[in-house]
């Protein structure tokens, strides 16, 4: 396999953009990524386009990638549509990475795009629920329960086991709201306090409104290429040191196999030849804020139960040893599901290049991890897990 480099990233802001169709969101991100790389549409040899809900929400059930790319002037090339729930965008990145790594192409584009505001919240919620296996959504599972009581994370049980309080659960949301307040692309830029979060409306006990990511429109793109092309496009290429994708497993009670987010991260660490102590910055999948506390342990950043301490001691804040979710994460930056993974990647590329503006991590990071996951199956696991390690 050849080395693969990211030479350009771009994103459309996250938020509510009623006047913009899906392809307009995507076009803004694609144009920005190409401009960032100094590339033209004709330089793109192959493209992978991630989107999850566009079929149900816009009615464009097929060829969403071809439609978006044609709008951006990228035509006559292989286009692969990717649907992998909230991990669609990093799955698209893996496709682009694989084509360049294998030598099938020298320059590949990865796109993630989502249009969730369609003027009917109930329809958007129903589409989101369809990212779970039917026997969960049709049986009446409110998907926040996937974090509150679902065996894969079961925040309620963690409160009993670790003694976590509602204030502990709120800490990632508070930290990330500060980061988001510094991000011009972020959907929610208001700084929150512990009180704001704990006393916001209960959604599924113990998760409150401000602990939950919200409906969002957005798009992001990354241009990747081989080493010889990288130098031509960019003065600051970022190497993809690992790009791991795996499906969840079916677990029965008593299953002792390692957690799937942990297994995915471990595989990425091995492929990159690093360990969690080498990480300088992390973007992770905090679809519900307390998930960040669990992911700290599963990514190897702390021992079980120590998540709140990492925030108390400032280790994962913007000025800490390993800042987590400098973009604001899913709760503040926004979670347009099929775009989220590449929004994480774009943020990490900006951080690694020292271009993140007021939220730039002062001691310039060299190694970054993006952790993304999606979907829920009857197998007591998420459906999709990805881990991507970037280095400069």
């Amino acid at each position, binding site marked *: 396999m050849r080395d693969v480099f990211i030479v350009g990233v771009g994103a459309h802001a996250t938020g509510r953009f009623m006047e913009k169709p899906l392809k307009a969101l995507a076009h803004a991100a694609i144009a920005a990524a190409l401009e960032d790389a100094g590339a033209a549409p004709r330089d793109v040899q192959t493209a992978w386009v991630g989107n999850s809900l566009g079929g149900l929400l816009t009615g464009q059930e097929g060829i969403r990638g071809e439609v978006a790319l044609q709008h951006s002037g990228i035509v006559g090339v292989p286009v692969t549509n990717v649907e992998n729930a909230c991990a669609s965008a990093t799955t698209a990145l893996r496709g682009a990475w694989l084509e360049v790594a294998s030598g099938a192409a020298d320059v590949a584009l990865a796109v993630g795009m989502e249009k969730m505001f369609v003027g009917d919240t*109930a329809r958007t*919620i*129903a589409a989101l*629920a369809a990212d779970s296996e039917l*026997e*969960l*959504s049709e*049986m*009446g*599972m*409110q998907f*926040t*329960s996937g974090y*509150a*009581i*679902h*065996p894969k994370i*079961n925040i*309620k*049980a963690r409160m009993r086991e670790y003694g976590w309080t509602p204030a502990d659960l709120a800490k990632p949301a508070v930290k990330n709201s500060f980061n988001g307040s510094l991000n011009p692309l972020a959907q929610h830029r208001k700084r929150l306090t512990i009180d704001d979060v704990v006393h916001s*409306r*209960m*959604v*599924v*006990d*113990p998760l409150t409104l401000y602990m939950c990511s919200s409906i969002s429109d957005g798009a992001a793109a990354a241009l990747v290429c081989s080493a010889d092309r990288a130098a031509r496009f960019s003065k600051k290429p970022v190497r993809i040191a690992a790009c791991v994708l795996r499906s969840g497993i079916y677990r*029965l*009670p008593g299953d002792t196999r390692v957690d799937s987010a942990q297994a995915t991260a471990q595989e990425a660490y091995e492929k990159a030849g690093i360990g969690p102590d080498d990480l300088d910055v992390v973007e992770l999948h905090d679809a519900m804020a307390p998930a960040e506390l669990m992911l700290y342990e599963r990514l190897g950043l702390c021992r079980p139960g120590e998540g709140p301490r990492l925030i108390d001691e400032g280790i994962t804040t913007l000025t800490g040893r390993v800042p987590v979710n400098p973009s604001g994460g899913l709760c503040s930056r926004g979670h347009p599901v099929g775009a989220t993974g590449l929004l994480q990647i774009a943020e990490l590329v900006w951080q690694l290049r020292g271009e993140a503006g007021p939220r730039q991590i002062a001691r310039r990071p060299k190694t970054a991890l993006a952790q993304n996951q999606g979907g829920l199956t*009857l197998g*007591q696991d998420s459906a999709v897990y990805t881990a991507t390690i970037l280095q400069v």
Partner: protein
Amino acid sequence: MIEARIGRTGRLYSHSIAYVAPQGFTAPYFQAFVELAEGPRIFTLIGRNVPVEPGQLVDGEEMRLIVEPLADTPEKRNLLTHKYVPARGTAHA
């Protein structure tokens, strides 16, 4: 995949109250996972005779299978499904 017949009992693995419901369901309503004697844990709603209040269910307690409409809404009232209720007492027949 193997086919298995399941019995009428299970153990409450976890539960919570949802204060927001998707279309066709009415909040607040219970959300629960029940561990079947045969092995799997399944997502389930709780029988409508159990008041939707904290303290009504205890994780770990024995549960009993019932069949009732998925929800009391026009969209769901004609769909019969499995649900669980606490096995203790007879109040939730």
